[in-house]
């Protein structure tokens, strides 16, 4: 018997988990909500909602400033949240956890502070063909600023990363490899450990965009030996407005600040200012205080169920969804990687993804339609858009059945 699971016991108690998410009892257009857009942002459990409301009602003040009880309490909660995240990622120290706005700002921080400080014209950064715009555009801005070159690892038709091509791209000019952990469109789980090993063998640093990785897999930054790992709080069932950048301490302390302002300084005179060490150096201004506490509550909630068990549940649901969707005539699934997480992108012949999304919404089904902020990937498959059903810990077979039924209705309208 596993006795380390205090709240939810084996087997995976889907009904009790669903009960923890108040929004799941909403009716949408007269139908039960089948929320299949967790890849964009999952719903929030009661534990997070209560934690944040409690803090605003009873424990709120600005942090790192006042010498009074409430300010001390708020500071403690904020710093405890950092420890919770550090523990969850198995970081060597909580100083390696920087709170940002979202993973977009985590990546931009690295591009700005690491990129502009250490990279120069002719240096190369390697990304993949399945990146979110958040892991493309910051490097293009860096390219404009310092003249680095951007190299792209291709993918095969199933959505697997072509590792042999990656090895060919690696060279003494490679300074940074920045790749997604899991594709938000194809669901491909990248072999990040192997990518990191190969990059380090070439003395290159590695940044992982963990926006999707954090919600479908265990992340142990020391075991991965990754240099930077970014994720976004709202995708780990926490609030929006807070993100995380993990970085190895020595690297972070070698980097200049991002924004200047309060909290990040050691001493300010008009002639010269000295900066504090990480993480304070990178957290100028009043941070997302209550969001940090909300994120910590989300992490603890996920831990109480177990990310491995969540992933296993999503995996079996992914198999079910893949089988049911494949049986729909004219439906084509994009992304058939060997290692795949709970994301299914598809098109239906003769029905544009936008029309699919509008029509199935009338049956209570929420999916995303569009380019999913990954236009180069769309171009790779000669697509303007796909519909995407993505899974969270609370989805069940009836959500998939509702989706399939609604898709049949959409086809019916078009025929």
């Amino acid at each position, binding site marked *: 018997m596993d006795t380390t699971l205090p709240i939810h016991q084996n087997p995976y108690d889907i009904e009790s988990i669903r009960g923890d998410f108040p929004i799941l009892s909403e009716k949408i257009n007269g139908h039960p909500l089948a929320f299949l857009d967790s890849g964009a942002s999952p719903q929030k459990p009661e534990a997070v909602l209560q934690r944040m409301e409690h803090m605003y009602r009873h424990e709120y003040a600005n942090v790192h400033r006042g010498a009074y009880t409430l300010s001390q309490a708020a500071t403690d909660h904020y710093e405890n949240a950092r420890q919770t995240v550090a523990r969850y990622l198995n970081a060597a120290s909580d100083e390696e956890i920087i709170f940002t706005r979202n993973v977009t700002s985590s990546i931009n921080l690295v591009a700005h502070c690491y990129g502009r400080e250490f990279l120069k014209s002719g240096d190369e950064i390697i990304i993949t063909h399945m990146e979110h715009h958040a892991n493309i555009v910051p490097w293009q801005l860096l390219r404009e600023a310092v003249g680095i070159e951007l190299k792209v690892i291709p993918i095969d038709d199933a959505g697997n990363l072509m590792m042999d091509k990656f090895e060919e791209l690696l060279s003494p000019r490679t300074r940074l490899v920045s790749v997604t952990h899991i594709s938000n469109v194809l669901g491909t789980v990248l072999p990040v450990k192997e990518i990191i090993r190969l990059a380090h063998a070439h003395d290159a640093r590695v940044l992982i965009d963990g926006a999707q990785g954090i919600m479908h897999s265990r992340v142990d930054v020391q075991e991965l030996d990754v240099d930077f790992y970014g994720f976004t709080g709202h995708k780990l069932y926490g609030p929006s407005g807070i993100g995380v950048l993990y970085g190895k301490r020595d690297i972070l302390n070698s980097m200049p600040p991002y924004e200047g302002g309060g909290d990040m300084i050691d001493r300010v005179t008009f002639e010269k200012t000295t900066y504090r060490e990480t993480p304070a150096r990178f957290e100028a201004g009043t941070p997302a205080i209550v969001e940090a506490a909300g994120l910590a509550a989300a992490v603890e909630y996920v831990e109480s169920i177990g990310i491995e068990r969540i992933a296993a549940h999503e995996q079996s649901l992914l198999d079910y969804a893949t089988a049911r969707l494949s049986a729909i005539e004219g439906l084509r699934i994009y992304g058939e990687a060997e290692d795949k997480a709970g994301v299914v992108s598809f098109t239906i012949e003769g029905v544009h993804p936008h029309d699919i999304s*509008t029509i199935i919404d009338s049956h209570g089904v929420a999916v995303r339609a569009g380019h999913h902020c990954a236009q180069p990937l769309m171009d790779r498959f000669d697509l*303007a858009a796909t519909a995407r059903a993505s899974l969270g810990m609370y989805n069940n077979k009836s959500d998939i059945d509702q989706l399939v039924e609604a898709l049949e209705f959409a086809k019916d309208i*078009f025929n």
Partner: protein
Amino acid sequence: MDDMLRELYQEVILDHGKNPRNFRHPEDATCKADGNNPLCGDQLTVYAKVGDDQTIKDVAFEGRGCAISLASASMMTEIASGKSISQVQNLFDLFHKLCTGEEEGMVPDEFADDIEKLRVMSGVRQFPMRVKCATLAWHAIHAAVTGENNASTE
């Protein structure tokens, strides 16, 4: 809800969406503009041939998009052809109001028939997220004939 959907996806719209009229690239076009919907990546290019007398002799388009944007573009090509530039501007204005449900006011006689035809698109009112799909081609024709090269729904 299903009624609102059937109203949006009515026969005429599905037909224009599946078989868009004037879906081509005319060699003798005098102006063109791209219409982009950055939200969804849909993209249309609208071509027009404008005569010396400032009337539009021919309108066509190419590109990809949802049923609503293709149907709207298809209908736009039929209606804008033969109009003057200022008439197209007025029609765009009226059509925009029709899509958002804003008070149209008096429709001038000269546009009464056109607006009657375009009224099939008014189902989009119930779906605010889709209004941009319906107006994309109109943004583009407007940009083309007034000399801008790009139209974005943003």
